[in-house]
């Protein structure tokens, strides 16, 4: 009796065959609409900062080092891969790639650093229209931003005109210790 049941088991196992993937040695394609690491196209990017405003993990940081140069840093360490940045990008400069093999021993390996040249208005010399400024507009963080890239911290302060004092202040920024 026990032998027949064993033979039955063997036959049951033979039917599906080996299902185990040979994954690390053979690639396994991802499912459709899988969201992996976002990639930036710096030719299309206009530096509006919409991705940095909408990022729920605040992992995209923007620093204006001068009037015309804006540095954007994407720190993949705390990215949720929600695809919000790709949704809000007006120029479709961000695409969610299918790259998921991001395991490293150095957290700087999953960062994207971008240097963007900002076009200032020829008439008023500012980057954005800040004429109708109110508190709700300021919550959207338009204007010049001074995030600290070393501490990976978003500093929720913006100015209408470029301010060197705020840039120095953000250089001295340290995370609150617990």
């Amino acid at each position, binding site marked *: 009796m026990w032998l027949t049941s064993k033979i039955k088991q063997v036959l049951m196992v033979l039917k599906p065959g080996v*299902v*185990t*993937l040979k*994954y*690390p*040695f053979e690639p*396994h394609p*991802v499912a459709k609409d899988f969201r992996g690491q976002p*990639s*930036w196209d*710096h*030719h299309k*990017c206009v530096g509006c900062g919409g991705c940095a405003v909408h990022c*729920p*993990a*605040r*992992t995209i940081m923007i620093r204006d080092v001068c009037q015309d140069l804006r540095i954007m840093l994407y*720190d*993949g*360490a*705390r*990215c*949720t*891969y*929600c695809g919000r940045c790709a949704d809000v990008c007006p120029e479709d400069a961000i695409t969610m790639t299918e*790259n*998921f*093999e*991001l*395991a*490293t*021993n150095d*957290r*700087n*390996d*999953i*960062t*994207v*650093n*971008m*240097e*963007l*040249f900002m*076009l200032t208005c020829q008439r008023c010399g500012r980057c954005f229209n800040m004429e109708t400024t109110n508190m709700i507009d300021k919550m959207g963080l338009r204007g010049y931003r001074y995030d600290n890239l070393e501490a*990976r911290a978003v500093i929720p302060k913006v100015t209408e005109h470029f301010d060197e004092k705020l840039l120095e202040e953000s250089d001295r920024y340290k*995370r609150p210790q*617990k």
Partner: protein
Amino acid sequence: MLAKLCKKAFPKSLWVYHCNSGACNGCDIEILNILTPYYDVERFGIKVVASPRHADVMFISGAVTRPTLPLVKKAYAAIPEPKLVFGIGSCAIGGNCWFDTYHVTGGADKAVPVNYIIPGCPPRPEAIIYGVALALGLVDKKASPVELKQVEFPVDMYQNNKAYEERNVIYQVLKN
């Protein structure tokens, strides 16, 4: 140096202690998923053990919350040397959306030293297998920092200005 040490210390198998430090269970389910016959990490000798004293490797999932912080430290201290720590998921690596909230220390690296990070929210089971295989030296590292620079715009501007000057007769007259 760490990679060499790994190759010497773990030539055959890794025994894994899975430490949930306040995760949402997404990463935990993916860690259990790699033990299923479909992914079957036991072919690399990886085995999940119940006690940190039996383990070589700690998988941390979740942003380390304040109640779990001393427990994570104790569990890390209980693992015999040499040991490796894998941060699994965005929470364990950088704290995800909760990196600066009041009751979260903001990532496992604030509590214990993290050797390897596996990003994802949650990471695919393949991504976890890839991370473990990376530590074992079976695969090569694929991630690298990206630096992008816009250089077209000022060049364009310069050319546009030049074309404008050539187009307008007044600049030619001024030059002469």
